[in-house]
């Protein structure tokens, strides 16, 4: 079976549209990262410090009632989230409350035991993270992101020439920013798992880009008569079906994690899904056009000299 026969789409010609679109996404991503750095985003407690609890109740519990119960017992600054399946409640308490580390979890449990005598609960998980650990994790994560991006750039620079390296790096950066943008706009939690997903996609998205670049390079060597955009378009069209198929299989796997993997990795697999989609788009619509522009500029310079 073949999904696509021979295609002849002018990908490079659409670069104005794709550049505008990608710039918007990237800008939102950058805003998101700035907000995260300022501590103004939905940060997971692994970065911000604090307490989070997941409780499973015997009977359904309206979130408003839970909030009222906590309020009544002096826990005003709590972030509540309902997990529909199985009467579960997620409670997040910021480090800035009056409750010290180790006390918040107990205080929440005491409040619920007192207020809902006929609705027993079990603690499915509880996490308490002190501010010093949060700081350390944040620093470690930043170092990890920088090192892995650097490693990838160096590898690409070594494998391809400089212009391809720039294209691949910008496309990878674009994908990471897009994931931040989506999570920031949807107000989803930025935690360690999300960063893990971003780094995974950074590696994966390159794979897609490399597939396209390999072909472009091959055709550049073969066919020197045609214009730059034509060679690029031809190459992308030639490898289009494999780009789509490889992404699709990973998309299938991530989708099954998203739908069936449970609440703990729900957001993680959502991030992967976004990343796979964006990564595929970027290798065609971001990485390649950037290289075309750079190549054309280099050619123009050569022409001017000659």
């Amino acid at each position: 079976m073949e999904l696509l026969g021979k295609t002849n789409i002018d990908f490079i010609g659409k670069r104005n549209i794709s550049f505008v679109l990608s710039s918007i996404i990237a800008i939102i991503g950058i805003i998101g990262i700035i907000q995260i750095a300022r501590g103004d985003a939905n940060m997971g407690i692994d970065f911000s410090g604090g307490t989070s609890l997941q409780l499973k109740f015997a009977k359904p519990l309206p979130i408003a009632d839970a909030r009222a119960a906590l309020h009544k017992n002096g826990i005003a600054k709590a972030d509540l989230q309902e997990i529909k399946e199985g009467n579960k409640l997620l409670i997040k308490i910021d480090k800035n409350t009056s409750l010290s580390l180790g006390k918040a979890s107990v205080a929440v449990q005491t409040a619920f035991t007192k207020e809902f005598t006929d609705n027993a609960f079990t603690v499915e998980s509880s996490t308490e993270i002190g501010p010093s650990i949060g700081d350390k994790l944040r620093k470690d994560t930043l170092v990890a992101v920088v090192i892995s991006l650097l490693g990838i750039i160096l590898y690409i620079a070594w494998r391809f020439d400089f212009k391809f390296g720039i294209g691949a790096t910008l496309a990878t950066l674009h994908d990471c920013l897009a994931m931040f943008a989506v999570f920031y706009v949807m107000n989803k939690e930025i935690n360690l798992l999300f960063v893990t997903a971003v780094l995974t996609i950074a590696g994966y998205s390159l794979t897609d880009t490399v597939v396209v670049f390999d072909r472009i390079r091959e055709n550049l060597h073969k066919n020197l008569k045609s214009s730059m955009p034509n060679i690029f378009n031809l190459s992308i069209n030639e490898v289009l079906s494999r780009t789509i198929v490889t992404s699709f299989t990973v998309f299938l796997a991530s989708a099954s994690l998203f739908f069936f993997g449970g609440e703990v990795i729900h957001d993680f697999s959502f991030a992967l899904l976004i990343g796979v989609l964006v990564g595929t788009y970027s290798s065609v619509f971001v990485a390649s056009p950037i290289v075309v522009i750079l190549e054309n500029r280099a050619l123009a310079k050569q022409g001017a000299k000659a």
Partner: protein
Amino acid sequence: MPKGTGWRISLIGIFILLSFFYLTPTLVTTLPSWWKGVLPKDKIHLGLDLQGGTYLVLEVDTEKAVEGTLDIVATDLEDTLTSKDLHFKRITRTGSDKVSLVLYEKGTAETVQKLLKDKYPGYEQSPLHDDGGFVAFDMKINDKDAQDRKDKSVQQALETIRNRIDQFGVSEPVIQREGINHIVVQLPGIKDPQRAIDLIGKTARLEFKMVREDIPPTSTSIPEDAELLKERTVDPTTGAVNEVPYVVQKKSLITGDLLTDAQVRIDSQFNQPYVAIEFNSLGAKLFDQATAANVGKRFAIVLDNNVYSAPVIRERISGGSAQISGSFTEKTAADLAIILRAGALPAPVKIIQNVTVGPSLGQDSINKGLYAGLIGILLVVAFMTIYYKLSGLVANWGMVLNVVYLMGALSALGATLTLPGIAAIVLLIGMSVDSNVLIFERIREELKLGKTPKSALDAGYDKAFMTIMDSHITTLITAAVLFQFGTGPVKGFAVSLSLGVIINLFTSLIGTKVIFDLALHKGNVKKMSI
């Protein structure tokens, strides 16, 4: 058979056998009796997020350990100077690195300085200076000794915590030092995490101090050598907290490091548990002296600055046994006995991270992870079979091989499987067929150029090779970084991902190629199902 097929098939077979060999303890519920000796017995290690349990990071307040040492030095100096008839006004620890001495005359001070230079070579003495008409100087602990003390205190704290956990009874705990002053404690499958945390986190400094009955606890001016401590009792039925204040002598008569044993006993009269303690010979002697000198007075039994009880000394107690009574339940008495036996921490610890996962959530995560994995496999298998027909089946075989090898490698290396680790495996199901997709698309192109299946196959594998290497290396770079910087669950993700990517190189380049080679080796195959 074509050339070079034999060793490849053997290699694939050996790896399959090895994988199942290492997976046997995980797959079989009870190992047969002949399965012993060097044969692997460990199931795949599950992370705390999958099996439930508690992960703690403790911070040792190492400054306090140095301060404790200086306190001892100060007491020791008092004794030394007193025994030598050298008169002093006061000897105290100041700040976290100095002992200050205040003396009456310059002559004595100079004698003391000389004496101490020999006795405490590790301390730097400041020149004599005037302190409100008296002669004073400081002894500062040098940085290296202080660092040493800090380092030792973390090591001691780790040993003490290990001792307490062992006595508490947790199967397969992990207790490790991390960084300069952190201790990581992992307690898998623990039922009552709060109790364990209380047990681990208590400093457990036991002190016997005389009660200063001449000063009322309500007094606003408590002398410098005394302090106000409280006895907290909780009514077991109402939960009401009652606090009784005592003024006690700051200097303790005896401390907990002189104990040899602590056991829970039940008071036959009130049916109330108490903790019976035994002193070593020095402790017994001190206790004997102290009780003899203070008959009729009260002393307080103090643990971490909380008074447990303050009995009146009725008679001299020789023999070195005493008892700590208070409002105990059997559990709290048993825990107190454990921490007294295991000894005090050299410095207080603070819990800076506590991740507890209940067993039900862990099991739920395993089930859902496996379910998602199964659905992922089915979807990918179905797609590949429809899209690439028989060749798709070969790619599917490579993918299954990948999963089996990966599980085998995880158990052989004793790696820890976490929920993100399972996610990585599911993700790899999608990624592992990608190499074959690249190869197949190449083959399709070569076939369109009119090549025979055999040469199209070889060209496909050859030309796709570099692309496959590139994609694997970029993934490995990020996986390695994640492994280096990630903690717990994320590390599990990195382990599964990097192992999977390496294994995938083998399965996609050798595992699947062999089947094609076998099918096409006659060279007269006209059509390829791709």
